[in-house]
C-alpha cells in the first residue's frame, strides 16, 4: 500500500518533466518572439531585453559560463556545474521545479508568471468549485430519480437532458444560453472587477455552464450504476427485511452507486480546466483561462508555457488524488498485487 502510494505520487514528476519539455520546445520553435511589435524595436533595445531575460543564452549547455566561473576562482563543483547548465532549457526546467515560471514578457518582466497565476487562478478555482458543486448536487439526484423511475417520463426527461449535456460542448451551450438570456431578459454578462472579487452571484451562471458536462456525465453514470444495484441481492434482502424504501435507497443503494462517480472526478478535473478557458472568455470572468487566451493573442510565450505546465500539474495531481481515494471509498479495491 505504502509503496503503491509513493510510486503513484512520484510518477507525477516525469509527467511534469515531459509536459514542461514538450511545451518548452514547441514554444521555443514557434515563429515570432515576445518583442514583436508593429514598429520594430531598435537592435540595441532588443539585445538588452534578451540579455535581461536570458534569451541570448544557448539552448542546452553554456560552457562559456562554466569557464567564467572557473576563472573567477570559485572551485565549488555545484557552482561550476550550474554555470555549465546555464542554458535556456535547463534554466526553465530547474525554474519549474522551484516554482519559478519566469517573467511575463508582455508585462516587460514587471510580473512573474507564477505571480500572475496566483493573482488570476482564484477566480478560476471559484468557478470550478461552483461547477463541481452544481455537477454533484444536481447530477446525482437526477440519476437516482431516473433509475428509480426507470422507463417513465421522468427517466426519459433526465436521460435526454444528460445526453444533450454530455454531447453538446459547453462553449456552444454557454453561448446559446447567453444569447437566450440577453434576448429575453436583457441579461448582460458584463461585470465590474469588484463583482468578481468576492464570491458573489456573478459566479453562478458561468459556474453552472462550466459544470453542465460533468453534471450530465454524473447523472448518466449514477443512473447506470443505480439500475445495476437495484437488481442486487442485498437490496432485495433489505427490502424483504421490511426496511422502508427511503432507507434502502439512501443506505444500501446510493452508497454503492456513488463509488463509480469518484472515478470520473479525475477526467472531470481536465474537463473543468479546458472548459474554463472557453467559459471565462465567453462570460468575461477575469480568471486564468481568459488570461491564457489573451496571452495567445499577445504571443506572451512564457505565460502560455507557465499556464500549460500549471494546468498539467493540476490535472496530474487531481488524477493521483482520485486514484488514491479509490481504496478509501471502496474497501473492496486493494492496491498492489
Amino acid at each position, binding site marked *: 500500500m505504502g509503496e503503491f502510494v509513493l510510486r503513484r505520487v512520484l510518477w507525477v514528476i516525469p509527467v511534469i518533466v515531459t509536459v514542461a519539455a514538450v511545451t518548452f520546445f514547441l514554444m521555443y520553435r514557434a*515563429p515570432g518572439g515576445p518583442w514583436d511589435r508593429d514598429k520594430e524595436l531598435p537592435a540595441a533595445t532588443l539585445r538588452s531585453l534578451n540579455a535581461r531575460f536570458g534569451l541570448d543564452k544557448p539552448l542546452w549547455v553554456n560552457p562559456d559560463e562554466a569557464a567564467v566561473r572557473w576563472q573567477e576562482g570559485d572551485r565549488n563543483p555545484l557552482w561550476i556545474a550550474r554555470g555549465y547548465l546555464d542554458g535556456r532549457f535547463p534554466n526553465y526546467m530547474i525554474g519549474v521545479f522551484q516554482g519559478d515560471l519566469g517573467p511575463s514578457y508582455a508585462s516587460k518582466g514587471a510580473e512573474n508568471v507564477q505571480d500572475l497565476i496566483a493573482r488570476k487562478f482564484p477566480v478560476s478555482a471559484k468557478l470550478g468549485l461552483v461547477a463541481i458543486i452544481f455537477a454533484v448536487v444536481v447530477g446525482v439526484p437526477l440519476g437516482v430519480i431516473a433509475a428509480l423511475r426507470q422507463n417513465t417520463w421522468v427517466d426519459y426527461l433526465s436521460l435526454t437532458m444528460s445526453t444533450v449535456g454530455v*454531447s453538446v460542448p459547453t462553449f456552444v451551450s454557454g*453561448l446559446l444560453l447567453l*444569447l437566450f438570456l440577453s434576448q429575453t431578459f436583457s441579461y448582460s454578462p458584463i461585470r465590474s472587477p469588484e463583482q468578481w472579487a468576492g464570491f458573489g452571484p456573478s459566479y453562478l451562471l458561468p459556474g453552472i455552464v462550466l459544470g453542465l458536462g460533468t453534471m450530465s456525465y454524473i447523472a448518466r453514470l449514477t443512473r447506470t*450504476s443505480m439500475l445495476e444495484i437495484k437488481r442486487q441481492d442485498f437490496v432485495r434482502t433489505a427490502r424483504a427485511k421490511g426496511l422502508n424504501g427511503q432507507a434502502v435507497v439512501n443506505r444500501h443503494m446510493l452508497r454503492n452507486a456513488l463509488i463509480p462517480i469518484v472515478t470520473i472526478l479525475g477526467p472531470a478535473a481536465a474537463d473543468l*480546466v479546458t472548459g474554463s478557458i472557453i467559459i471565462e472568455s465567453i462570460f468575461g470572468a477575469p480568471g486564468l483561462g481568459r488570461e491564457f487566451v489573451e496571452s495567445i493573442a499577445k504571443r506572451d510565450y512564457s505565460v502560455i508555457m507557465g499556464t500549460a505546465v500549471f494546468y498539467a500539474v493540476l490535472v496530474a495531481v487531481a488524477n493521483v488524488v482520485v486514484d488514491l481515494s479509490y481504496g478509501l471509498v471502496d474497501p473492496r479495491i486493494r492496491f498492489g498485487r
Partner: protein
Amino acid sequence: MVQDQTVSRPAPPIAAPVIPTAPATPAVPATPTLAGALTTRAPRSLWTDAWRQFRRNKLALLGAVYLVFLFFVGVFAPLISPHNPVQSDLQEAGRYRQAAWIETDDPSSTGTWSYPLGTDGNGRDVFSRLVYGTRISLVVGFIPMAVIMLIGIPIGLLAGFAGGRLDNTLMRVTDVVYAFPALLFFIIMQISFGDTAFGELLNGLVLLFITLSIINWTGVARLVRGQTLALKEKEFVEAARASGSDSVRLVARHILPNTLGTIIVAGAFVVPGAIIAEAVLTYLGIGLRPDVNLDAPFPTSWGQMIQAGQAAYRNQAWLLIAPSLAVAGITLAFTFVGDGLRDALDPREQF
C-alpha cells in the same frame, strides 16, 4: 501486466475492467450439420445481432440517418446553397439581414427567403456558409479518426500481444497524455506551427489533422491493448495456437476481429471530439483560417461562424444560433449513434 492495469487506472469497481465481446468468429468453425441439427433457424453472426439491436434503438437510428444526411449535404453543397459562401453581396453588406421569418420595420434588413438564415456583416448568405461548413466538420471528424485507428490499433495489438518494452513505453506515454489536457496541447501545437508554411497547408487543415491524431491514438492503443491482454488468455485463442496458428494469424484472425466492437464504439466517440476541438480552436482564433477563394472547397467552418456570430449576435442572432445548433446537432447525433453501437456491440460495457 495485469497488476499494472488495475493499479495505474482502476476501472469502476462495479463494471468489470475489460470484458471481451463474444467471439465473433469461433476458432473452430462449427460444422453446419451440427448447427442445423440443434437449432431450427439459421445461425446469426455477431454483426447481424448487433444490427438488430442497433435498429431497435430509435435515437441511434435517427442519429445515423442525420449523419448520412449531413454527408450528402457536404457532398452536394454547391447544389444546395443558394449563394456563393465566400462572395459578398455588396447590396447586403453591413445590413445584417435577419432570418427569413423575422420581420423588421426596415425593408433592407427584414427577412427574405432568398437569404433563409439572413446575411452576415459582409453580406454573405449564412445558410450557404452553414451548408459548406458541414464539409469541414465531417472531414475534421473522420480523417483524424482514420489516422488514429491506423496508428492505434497495430500498436495496441502489438503491445498487448507481445508485451515487454513496447507495452511499458505505451503505458507511460498514455499516462503523460492523460495528464496533459488535450485542448491545451492542441492550442500549443497551433501556436507553434500555425504560422509556418506547413501549418498553412489547406488553411491549417493538415496541421489540425496531425494535432488531433497525435493525442488521440494513445486512447485507442490503450483500449486495444487491454482487450488483447484479456483475449489472449481465452480458450479459443489457446485452441487456435494448439492447432498450429502462428502469431500473425492468431492476432489477425482471432484477436483483432474480437476487438472490433470496442474499436468501433471508441471511433464513434473520437469523431465528435475532433469536431468540437476544431470548433473550439477556430473559435479561439487559432484554428482554421478563412478562405477567400470564391471556388474554395472548404471555405468556412462552423467554428469560424460561431466566432463571427458571437461578435455580431446583437445585430443578427441567427449568425450565432445557426452554427451553434449545427455543432450541437452533429455532436448529439454522434452520441446517439455511439450509445447505440455500444449497446449493440459491447453489451456488458454499459458506461
